[in-house]
C-alpha cells in the first residue's frame, strides 16, 4: 500500500486509456494491469456521436481513480483552461499537466509548465506535471508546490526505455521526498523494472501496453515487472564487486588445490 495524492493504492502502475484496439480490450487490459489510476482526456466531439458520455460511463464502471490530462496544450493558459474544464467534467482536482514545446519530440515546454503548475496549485489542483528528466525543471516544479513530478524515460510513445539513466537516478537522489512517476518512453516490462529498481514510486504506461499483439497479457507482464522492481528496491541490492566471490563454501572443497588457476 502506498499513498498518491491522498489516496491509498496497492498498484504502482498507472494506465492510459488510449490506443487500445477496442473498448473491451482496454477494459480487460486495465483489469489485468491491476491499475487503480487511469488517464483520460478532453476533446472536441460532435454531439451526435455521444462518444464522450458513453466513454465516461465506461470508465466509471471500472471503479478507478481518473487522472485527466491536458495533452495537446501549447501554452500555460490553454493548459490552465483545459484543467479547469477537466475538473468539472471528471469531478476531480487531479490533473496530468502537459504543455507541449515541440511537436517532433513532444518535449514539454518547461517554462510554461512551471507557470501553469504554479497557477493550478493556487487554484486547488493536485498537479501531476509531465516533464523531462532535467533536475532543475523538476526542482522548480517542486518549488511551486508540486508534490508529484512525472519525468520521461524517453519521448512519448517511443518505447525506447531509459535514454538517460544517470539523469533519472539523479532526480531520485536529489528529490527524495517527491513522488516520482516515470511517465513516458517505457517500451518493455524490463524498462519498468529498471526504473522501479532505481526507487521511482510508480510508472505510467499507455503505448507499451496498448500497441502490443496482446495488450491484456502485456498489462499483466507490466504489473509483475513493476511489482518485482519495487520489491527489489525495497529489499536493498547486494554490493557490486570487481572480483568473483564463490557462493558455495570453500571449506571442505573436494580435490583441493593450493595454487590458483591462472591462465
Amino acid at each position, binding site marked *: 500500500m502506498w499513498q498518491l495524492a491522498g489516496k491509498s493504492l496497492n498498484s504502482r502502475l498507472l494506465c492510459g486509456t*488510449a490506443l487500445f484496439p477496442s473498448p473491451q480490450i482496454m477494459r480487460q487490459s486495465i483489469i489485468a494491469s491491476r491499475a487503480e489510476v487511469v488517464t*483520460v482526456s478532453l*476533446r*472536441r466531439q460532435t*454531439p451526435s456521436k455521444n462518444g464522450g458520455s458513453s*466513454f*465516461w460511463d465506461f470508465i466509471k464502471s471500472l471503479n478507478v481513480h481518473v487522472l*485527466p490530462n491536458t495533452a495537446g496544450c501549447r501554452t500555460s493558459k490553454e493548459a490552465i*483552461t483545459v484543467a479547469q474544464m477537466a475538473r*468539472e467534467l471528471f469531478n476531480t482536482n487531479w490533473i496530468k499537466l502537459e504543455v507541449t514545446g515541440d511537436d517532433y519530440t513532444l518535449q514539454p515546454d518547461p517554462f510554461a509548465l512551471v507557470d501553469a503548475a504554479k497557477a493550478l496549485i493556487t487554484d486547488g489542483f493536485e498537479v501531476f506535471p509531465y516533464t523531462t528528466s532535467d533536475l532543475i525543471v523538476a526542482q522548480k516544479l517542486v518549488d511551486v508546490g508540486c508534490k508529484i513530478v512525472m519525468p520521461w524515460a524517453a519521448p512519448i510513445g517511443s518505447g525506447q526505455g531509459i535514454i538517460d539513466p544517470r539523469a533519472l537516478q539523479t532526480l531520485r537522489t536529489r528529490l527524495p521526498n517527491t513522488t516520482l512517476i516515470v511517465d513516458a518512453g517505457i517500451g518493455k516490462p524490463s524498462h519498468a523494472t529498471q526504473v522501479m529498481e532505481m526507487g521511482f514510486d510508480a510508472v505510467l504506461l499507455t503505448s507499451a501496453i496498448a500497441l502490443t499483439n496482446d495488450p491484456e497479457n502485456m498489462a499483466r507482464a507490466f504489473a509483475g515487472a513493476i511489482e518485482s522492481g519495487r520489491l527489489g528496491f525495497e529489499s536493498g541490492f547486494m554490493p557490486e564487486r570487481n572480483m568473483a566471490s564463490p557462493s558455495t563454501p570453500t571449506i571442505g572443497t573436494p580435490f583441493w588445490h593450493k595454487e590458483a588457476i591462472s591462465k
Partner: protein
Amino acid sequence: MQLVINGEEKTIEDIDTIKDLLVNLGYEIDSVAVACGDTFVSRSKYAQYKIKNGEQIEILQPMQGG
C-alpha cells in the same frame, strides 16, 4: 449570430446563453465542459453567460487519453 465553435465558423440564430447554444447543438449539458475565448465557464453559469457575436467557443467531452 456568427460563432466559432470548436474551430468551425457557424451561424446560429435565436440563442442568447451558453445553455441555449448547447441545447441548440444537441449536447447533453452534463457531459460537456465549455470555454469561451480562452476562459473556462462553469456549468453553473451556462444559463447566465450571454454569448457575444463572433465569440470562439470550445465544447469538450471525455475521451481516451494517455
